[in-house]
């Protein structure tokens, strides 16, 4: 413990030399899922007692906790506002990704979470105040942001914040000719393109859409359809989760 810490490195083997092109696009995914098959999803509200509302989500290896605080007093410097404010923050634990030193700082995630949620929250219901949405990614297993978004909307519902609908989110990777839904890290690291959609299924509205990589219009059509399908499925899970939580408190 001599004040300064020596430089260290992770002993994990380097990424193996890339697989030959032809078996990069094989028909089986690394975890044995089908192309259109999502990871098993587990969600639960009320993970953090000291928050106004909270939720925990586990999609495969991706584990996320979201706490919602407020509506509470806005920062002093803020001007008067008829509308409520939404403040989002997303952070990673140091052990979330396999290599500690890497320190993946996804600063843009906070703004992206904000953009995905703001269209769903009825800000008029809490004037002059702020709702804080804080997310911590305990373990990163791929598709982190969509999981954070879905989990955050569940936490908002748990906190009793008025929303038009629950926001659910799904992403999809384009690997050569294949479109694979809900990709894991291994797939994301070699993807040709990515499409992420956040939507409010009962209103059939997209609140956030982000596409990277090169896409043709028919492919976008197909990818959006797959993602919206996944979102609809996920929304039944989130709804069931809320209903279960509500009925267990009544008992």
């Amino acid at each position, binding site marked *: 413990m001599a004040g300064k810490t020596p430089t260290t*490195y992770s002993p994990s083997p380097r990424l193996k030399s890339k697989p030959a092109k032809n078996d990069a696009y094989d028909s089986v995914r690394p975890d044995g899922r089908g192309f259109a098959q999502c990871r098993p999803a587990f969600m639960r509200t009320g993970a953090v007692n000291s928050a106004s509302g909270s939720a925990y989500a586990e999609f495969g290896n991706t584990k996320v906790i*979201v706490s919602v605080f407020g509506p509470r007093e806005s920062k002093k410097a803020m001007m008067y506002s008829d509308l409520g404010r939404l403040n989002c923050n997303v952070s990673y634990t140091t052990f979330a990704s396999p290599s500690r030193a890497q320190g993946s700082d996804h600063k843009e995630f906070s703004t992206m979470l904000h953009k995905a949620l703001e269209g769903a929250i009825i800000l008029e219901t809490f004037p002059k105040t702020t709702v804080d949405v804080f997310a911590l990614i305990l373990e990163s297993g791929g598709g982190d942001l969509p999981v954070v978004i879905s989990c955050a909307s569940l936490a908002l519902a748990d906190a009793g914040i008025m929303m038009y609908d629950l926001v659910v989110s799904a992403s999809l990777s384009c690997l050569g000719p294949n479109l694979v839904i809900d990709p894991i890290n291994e797939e994301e690291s070699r993807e040709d393109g990515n499409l992420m959609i956040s939507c409010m299924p009962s209103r059939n509205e997209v609140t956030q859409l982000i596409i990277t990589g090169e896409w043709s219009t028919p492919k976008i059509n197909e990818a959006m359809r797959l993602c919206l399908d996944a979102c609809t499925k996920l929304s039944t899970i989130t709804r069931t989760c809320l209903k279960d939580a509500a009925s267990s408190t009544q008992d």
Partner: protein
Amino acid sequence: MGLPDAAGDLSSEMEVDAFRRLFPLRFHERHLAESIRPDGRPVGGARDTSLALGAVGSSDGSALAKIGSTTMLAAVKMEVMTPLSESPEEGCIAIEFHMPPICSPLVRPGRPADAAPVVAKQLNDTIVSSGMINLKELSLVSGKAAWMAYLDIYCLDADGALFDAALLSAVAALSHLRIPQVSLNDDGRVVVVSEEGEEKIDREPVNKEKRKLNLTNIPFSLTCVLHKGYILADPTAEEESIMGTLVTVALDSSDQLVSLYKPGGPVLAHTSVLKDCVELTKKRTVELQKILAEAISDMDLE
């Protein structure tokens, strides 16, 4: 606490929740007079404690500890370093304690909580001075390579007795730790030997036997709040904020005192009170040892 007398007059007519918010001290004192706490515990009793090992798959050892609703997640990651020249036979352990904004309404992003550095320092002192880890066990090749164990503890829910929960999760994560099997490659770097053994092993692993740390003298702790002659074990966040005198005692498995921490506060403790705190901690240590042993045996069964 502006109107202590008014409290007495109003209390009969007031709803319990309103009374609790308006006169928190009076509310708690009324309970203490009946030898019970607002959550139904006896004065010297700790909250339900649970421990789950292996919560984080991306780490080499991890544990989730819950004391009441205070929740701590600890994970150990092993990396390789060149040992310091003054101790070529020893590895290193770096302990960090984080309070992310999700854990409490008092923490905001970009502004670390006041309590975080205090708990971090206490943890570091306790774990290092207890001597539970023999740093020589972290050595790989003398003078060339040794393990650096990064122990990160995240507070997921802050509801009092942070240090106790953090220490419990830390020692549990260290007990769960499985050191990866490694060998030296051509460049003198240390690489992991894959467990499956699919690739032919052309190099002998350097640490075939030392896959687990030998933990001796594991420390456990109990925080108590002192108030008017009462000793409240394992306080909640509410109790900590209302009655400001805290005493934290850490004992190791052979009942040796590892650390004792009383950071000021309005109550000046008699030595006899401190002795009582130590007695309570002794009882608590037995409980915690049992919980840890059960968690480990549960894991071994799986």
